[in-house]
């Protein structure tokens, strides 16, 4: 297990380096360099050259690349070009907001999706099943950006005061206020993933109920509750975890969109605002943090997969002893 974790972490590190490289190249290919943040309109060539030299942007590309990777690896992220605040400080506050939003959306929606999928499979062909099937298709096909705008409109304009449609209340502003401000963004962020999870679990459970071992269990008089909750669910969770892993992108990438729609001061909002302001160090740090979070989350799901499927474990042990 430990060596599996180490191996997977090694893989994640390589991917992270690739992400860094791509961010670097993209920033250099994009029109209007970071110096734009410093220069007003129509800067003189002299002034531009001076700023470039100050930022080290007149050096060869490979040297800039090494400095860039080095500074990220040593967590020396520099300061914002626009406000002068250290990037690490900026990121620290917003990181917590994004993590909380993502985690709440993930936990709540995954639980709802799994519950709905399992109940639909258990009540296959009945009314509840039909509700879940239709509901999950609707949930997964609604574009979250559009849904977010609709919710902002509804709660901001038509039924104001029910739930805050914009902004983020911190814990200091009261637990109730804080939780209320999470509701709409978290709802929008995870609904499509919940639809996918519900459908996957339903299908996998129905498939699992056809398995030979379920028939054998029934032939020995096991009751339906044991069959569903102990056997079919246990088997159906494996393909569902794979899908949950694939949905992580929605939670982390989706935060970029959703935070902007609901004006939530998280990393996602920072990514957009810093890119628009050509705030080079902030943009890099926010992007890399987002990618890094995604990699870590994927890694956790992979390890979970390893923990719940004894066959994967055995395959790995076989390979590593050979």
């Amino acid at each position: 297990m430990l060596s599996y974790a180490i191996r997977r972490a090694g893989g994640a590190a390589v991917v992270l380096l690739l992400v860094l490289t791509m961010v670097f190249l993209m920033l250099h290919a994009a029109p209007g360099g970071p110096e734009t943040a410093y220069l007003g309109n129509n800067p003189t060539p002299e002034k531009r050259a001076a700023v470039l030299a100050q930022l080290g942007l007149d050096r060869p590309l490979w040297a800039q690349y090494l400095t860039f990777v080095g500074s990220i690896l040593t967590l020396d992220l520099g300061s914002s070009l626009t406000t002068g605040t250290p990037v690490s400080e900026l990121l620290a506050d917003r990181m917590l907001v994004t993590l909380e939003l993502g985690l709440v959306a993930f936990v709540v929606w995954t639980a709802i999706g799994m519950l709905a999928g399992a109940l639909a499979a258990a009540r296959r062909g009945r009314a509840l099943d039909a509700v879940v099937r239709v509901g999950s298709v609707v949930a997964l096909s609604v574009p979250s950006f559009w849904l977010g705008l609709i919710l902002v409109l509804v709660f901001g304009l038509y039924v104001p005061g029910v739930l805050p449609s914009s902004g983020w209340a911190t814990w200091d502003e009261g637990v109730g206020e804080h939780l209320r401000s999470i509701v709409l963004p978290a709802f929008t962020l995870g609904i499509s993933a919940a639809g996918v999870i519900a459908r996957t679990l339903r299908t996998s459970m129905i498939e699992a109920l056809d398995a030979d071992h379920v028939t054998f269990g029934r032939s020995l008089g096991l009751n339906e509750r044991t069959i569903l909750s102990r056997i079919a669910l246990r088997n159906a969770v494996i393909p569902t975890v794979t899908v949950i892993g694939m949905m992580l992108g929605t939670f982390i990438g989706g935060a970029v969109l959703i935070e902007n729609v609901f004006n939530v001061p998280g990393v996602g909002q920072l990514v957009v605002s810093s890119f628009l302001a050509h705030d080079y160090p902030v943009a890099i740090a926010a992007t890399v943090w987002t990618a890094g979070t995604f990699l870590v989350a994927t890694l956790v799901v992979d390890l979970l997969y390893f923990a719940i499927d004894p066959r994967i474990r055995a395959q790995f042990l076989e390979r590593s002893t050979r």
Partner: protein
Amino acid sequence: MRTVVELPAGQAGDTGAGPLLEVSGLDVTYRTARGLLPAVRDVSFRVERGEVFGLVGESGSGKSSLVTALMRLLPRGSEITADRLEFDGTDLLTMPESRMRRLRGREIGLVPQRPMTSLSPVTPVAAQLRRLTGGEVDDARLHELLTDVGLGGLKARLGDYPFQFSGGQLQRMLIAVAVLAREPSLVLADEPTTTLDATVQAQVLRLLLDLRERLGNTVLLVTHDLGVVAQVCDRVGVMYGGRLVEVAPTRQLFEDPQHPYTRALLAAMPSNQARGERLRPIPGTVSGAQLLPGCPFAPRCDRATALCWEVDPEPTEHAGRTVRCHHPGSPA
């Protein structure tokens, strides 16, 4: 010297002297994408207490469907109807599901066809075997059961998962929970050895028969292997296209088959070829036979007449057994 005591007819039911299983007019129909598929059609037979009843027939003839129907475990969307489906004098068809569930495993045990997939892949075997015996079994008893089926050496490995055992080992475990743990009076064994290595097949079959000797249960044995039938079965039913085309005591069936399909089946037996007879595969295939209006075997039968194509023969008593054929009889 043995004395045979004849029971007065009235007492037969109370003392459980009637047949253990009585089936009459059983139909099993699957609803498929291409319409209704009558997998078992108008099947009638009885299994006497203590006997080994063999069920043979080629792939798709409806053997598993029949066995599964007896336990009322057919998949969703399939239908069972019967004039009579009685186990130990009790009607299985109208029995509420809760009672049927108590019967499963306790009164009727199933030994499955594919041991490799008959335990859940994600739970250690010890926990599953305990669960499958109704959770009433402690470690000591479990070990005792496994020792009894020849798996005494596996004590230390019971925390392992099914895929870490061989098919033969798994089948022994399944037999331990399905046959030995609760000693059901009827054991349904659906091709219990077909997926096992040739060397293991005989051992597993031996185990089933030894247990039967010890526990005195009745066995319904589905098999492809006519050699096994000849060795272990008291009576045999031959299935074709969803029908039970001939039912006879084993010896009679082998010495003097009456249904043309049974004759063809026996002629195709390897041991008959070894005796120098020429290989006689049965021409044609079984597919679609269930849907024919007349005799399901007509397309492949060398005796088929116009009547055979049009009218499905009813079961009749002939030469001391039941046969479904318009023109039964010994080989010319």
